[in-house]
């Protein structure tokens, strides 16, 4: 690897986490929430998304490659840290630790989730529809796996948004960083509620 690329790679890692991955995550959770408006509405929305023009191009450059880069560098970042929350139990140090834990959980979740939905649909083994998710999530184990996966993803995004604001020099003062903590907490809570609400609809039909 060429020398002195760390700065560029780390900035790219931070940027990709929000644009496009974060934006895609919000869009994904919102579109899935159509499940709460009935099976047909969900199927219509899913069909719309699945038949977007240049779908393969969009998937590759907006979703797949950014996530791959973010994941590979992210795992490296996890391994160079020596966590010390037991000695320094400050709030931000816990967030630092949880960001790394949630990153790993999210990676495992996404790999499985993509394999069981997008890959299976692509191979023609299953059909993209409300029933696909209903079948997956009616299994209690998978319901809890998805619940933890979605929560971990929204946490990783919201807390990552906080450090994005610091990394890009937007929130410099302690006060602005504190307010950003509250704002990202609200983002985490609202996105988690939206995500879990959808999961409950798929699993229990309520």
């Amino acid at each position: 690897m060429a020398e002195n690329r760390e700065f560029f790679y780390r900035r790219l890692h931070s940027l990709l986490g929000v644009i496009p991955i974060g934006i895609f995550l919000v869009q994904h959770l919102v579109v899935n929430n159509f499940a709460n408006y009935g099976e047909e509405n969900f199927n219509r929305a899913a069909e719309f998304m699945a038949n977007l023009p240049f779908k393969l191009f969009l998937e590759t450059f907006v979703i797949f490659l950014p996530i791959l880069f973010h994941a590979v560098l992210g795992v490296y970042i996890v391994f160079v840290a020596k966590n010390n929350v037991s000695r320094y139990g400050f709030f931000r140090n816990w967030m630092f630790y949880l960001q790394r834990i949630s990153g790993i959980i999210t990676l495992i979740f996404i790999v499985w989730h993509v394999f069981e939905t997008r890959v299976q649909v692509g191979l023609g083994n299953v059909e993209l529809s409300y029933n696909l998710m209903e079948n997956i999530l009616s299994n209690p184990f998978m319901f809890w796996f998805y619940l933890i996966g979605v929560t971990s993803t929204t946490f990783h995004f919201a807390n990552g948004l906080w450090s994005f604001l610091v990394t890009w020099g937007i929130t410099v003062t302690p006060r602005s960083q504190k307010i950003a903590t509250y704002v990202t907490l609200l983002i985490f809570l609202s996105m988690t509620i939206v995500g879990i609400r959808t999961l409950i609809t798929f699993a229990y039909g309520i």
Partner: protein
Amino acid sequence: MAEKTISLIITRQNSPDSTPYEEKFEVRYRENMNIISALMEIQRNPVNANGEKTAPVTWESNCLEEVCGACSMVINGIPRQACSTLVDKLEQPIRLAPMSTFPVMRDLAIDRSRMFDSLKKVKAWIPIDGTHDLGPGPRMPEKKRQWAYELSKCMTCGVCLEACPNVNSKSEFIGPQSLSQVRLFNAHPTGAMNKGERLETLMEDGGIAGCGNSQNCVQVCPKGIPLTTSIAALNRETNIQSFKNFFGSDYAY
């Protein structure tokens, strides 16, 4: 009346490569003792708690008023200065250990060279030498001087590096101490003439990108230096510098 004593458990090490071990000491209590005075007692009478004669404990200290940074060590789990840590305020037995981020030379004496090397790397000075008298430098706004003064309190004690989860043997990250010094020297009106040079050193491997925002540094800094504010401000500056470098700018010095 029995003599009042304090007990210390000290992590010792005979040489840079030897295995560390713990040794217990009982030291005669005096009023208002600090850790240095307890260590001086051991030096005066190097006998451990079992009554065996042992080598006196080695440590480093200079100023004894928390401005030189030499006597940093881990006291009851917290990295701090031995001179300003009072025995009366500590739970017993008092545990002393060298800071683990730095190579141990002997007992509590550590080698802090990496921080001085970082200061050289980031050019933490203001070049004022010329072949002729350059005259007085530009003036500095008072408000700026006030916050810059806070940054100048850094004594290179190493406590922020000890607390940082990203400063370790697996990572090249130079740590918060030298980053904040770049902000200090870039704030100076004469120092600002080499602003870009310093920022570019932070954009090298092991530079500012190594920060993971755990913000332990600002919590543990004995001088209350706003290290995380410095890091965020430098994040902004290095980003702007990288855009200037890539897209081109007449102000990229």
